[in-house]
């Protein structure tokens, strides 16, 4: 589904990703772990197409398409979802309005008919219920006045509504208490653990992996993947620290 080959990304003059390669097949959940400054968020933004993250060489194929040739909104329509480490507030725009416009924009690009207000609300309500979010919050402006946990929960509701093929979740576990962590973990499993979908979890800690079992774990250090393994690698990292493994 996702094939990253020798990816180099620079921000300004500074090269952050230095030849990163990674292959993710449908039905798989991958976790990338690594110390601060390893390039985890840069990888997320590069795949999302954020302006300012310049790919200097390498290729990324997503679902048969050249991902790097697409604009950010086209990547979304192709089925890519980013869960943000710091979800952004948009004052005056309700969650419902935001997501309906976003979903219908995606559907339009895919040549699908737009959802009516009623149809959309049905989908939105089901996802909100599943994540234990009440409808009032769905009607509030996007992330405005939400607690850290509520924002992350909202990201999961958005993911459920947009129903992507591949979700890249950037430190979705940060700022969550144990209960919220469990809810978010269940959300990821419910929406994304399917044979035709895939997940890339980016995290510092093992704890989210207690709830979402990865099939593969990778260690990112200094802009490239230095080690890959099964779920046991995460435990090893937790025990011994990055310094040991990345060395």
């Amino acid at each position, binding site marked *: 589904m996702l094939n990253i080959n020798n990816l180099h990304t620079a921000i300004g003059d500074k090269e952050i990703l230095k030849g990163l390669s990674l292959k993710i097949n449908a039905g798989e959940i991958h976790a990338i772990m690594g110390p601060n400054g390893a390039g985890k968020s840069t990888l997320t933004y590069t795949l999302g197409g954020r302006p300012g993250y310049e790919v200097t060489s390498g290729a990324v194929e997503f679902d048969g398409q050249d991902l790097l040739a697409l604009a950010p*909104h086209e*990547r979304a329509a192709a089925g890519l979802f980013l869960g943000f480490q710091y*979800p*952004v507030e948009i004052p005056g*725009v309700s969650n419902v309005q*935001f997501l309906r416009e*976003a979903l219908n*924009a*995606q559907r339009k690009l895919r040549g699908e008919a737009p959802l009516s207000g009623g149809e959309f609300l049905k989908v939105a309500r089901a996802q909100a219920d599943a994540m234990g979010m009440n409808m009032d919050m769905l009607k509030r402006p996007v992330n405005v006045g939400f607690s850290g946990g509520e924002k992350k929960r909202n990201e999961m509701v958005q993911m459920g509504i*947009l129903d992507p093929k591949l979700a890249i979740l950037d430190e979705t576990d940060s700022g969550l208490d144990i209960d919220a962590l469990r809810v978010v973990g269940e959300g990821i499993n419910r929406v994304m653990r399917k044979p035709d979908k895939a997940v890339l979890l980016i995290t510092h800690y093992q704890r989210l992996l207690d709830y979402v079992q990865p099939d593969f774990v990778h260690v990112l250090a200094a802009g490239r993947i230095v080690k890959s393994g099964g779920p046991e690698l995460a435990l090893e990292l937790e025990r011994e620290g990055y310094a040991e493994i990345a060395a």
Partner: protein
Amino acid sequence: MTNIADTKNAEALAAANKVSDYEWGFSSDIEQEFAPKGLSEDTVRFISAKKNEPEWMLDWRLKAYRYWLTMETPHWAKLNIPPIDYQDAYYYAAPKAKKQLGSLDEVDPEILRVYEKLGIPLEEQKMLAGVEGARKVAVDAVFDSVSVATTFRKELEEAGVIFRSISEAIREYPEQVKKWLGKVVPMHDNYFAALNCAVFSDGTFVYIPEGVRCPMELSTYFRINAENTGQFERTLIVADKGSYVSYLEGCTAPMRDENQLHAAVVELVILDDAEIKYSTVQNWYPGDAEGKGGIYNFVTKRALCQGKNSKVSWTQVETGSAVTWKYPSCVLNGENSVGEFYSVAVTNNHQQADTGTKMIHNGKNSRSTIVSKGISAGKSNGTYRGLVKVAANADGVRNFTQCDSLLLGDQCGAHTVPYIEVKNPTAQIEHEATTSKISDDQLFYAMQRGLDQESAVALIVNGFAKEVLQQLPMEFAVEAQKLLGISLEGSVG
């Protein structure tokens, strides 16, 4: 079956055309009858004669003209305007009268086509087509200074509402007009008001009788359509005791290279327990991306809340014009009277806007609310200028003011200039102001969820302006939302 490639090409072409041209920049070809070029007493006499005006009206115009000659252009606004040659413009242009029209069907198809291009709201199109159940909106169509057709006149007449072009009203209801014309905005009020008094070509008169809730929303479409023709509209609305009316005003103008002068005057009179809701969407040609052309918009709008418990609410969405100089104001004379001002002003490229309001509290326990949302992009400048004034004997006055500015890019400016003059110690005045930028984080977040850049900007801007937009009547709100997006196209990235 539709060929997808063709559809895509057509869409791309349409989008490209939209960006390269002012979307509604077109001009239609209708025979004009011009007043001689330039401004003199003869011009004033020509206009008055054209309108078959009574002697008193001509005298009033001439008095204003002579006063105007002694005045100077105001310079206090934060606007950079080259000197205007008032002798190098036409002051009167009207489509030649063909016959008395009974309905819109009989209107010159050319004019109807202009309305179609203007995208008159669907609700109204349905209404005009006689679709059952469509919401009623009366359209007094002002086409190049002269009212061409008035719909729903009969139903309004049954309710006792007078809805006429001001020229007709001067002839048919001289006493009503005489009583209030120039009483809210005196002819010597300011340079542009004096000019308007001398040469106003047409406009609208509305009278809502005591206790009547106007059975429909009143809507006038203004349009400037002749090269080098200033448009000088005059609107007078009187809401008698206990009455209510909602009035919508919307406008766009065709593309012209030379600057066009517009100096309108709007006077509202509100008596005891009456209310006027006045909504404007202004989308005149703003000039091109280099700042060439565009409308000069110098407007004096004022409401006189004369009666106790009277209320006026101004809502404006200002996206057009090269220069906007406009301060819809409320003179709150009545006890417990209420003034509201909700404004969204967008400037892009080289546009300049100096706009705001005045709340003059003379009545006891009068209250006012000001919500101003300024959006600046490109190399434009937007200024909020507002006065809150409380007279010495006006006890218990309250005002709340909120001024928010949103910047797109780093070459534009937003300025807030509040004036507060309080002579009564019991007054409660609050002023809040914020300035923010559309952040890259917000844009990327919205785009990652599937919105293209223009849609993302439009969404964020509409969220910013929501408090004002939700004051608009439904059919206007939808139009205004689209307009905000269109006005800011190409302003980011």
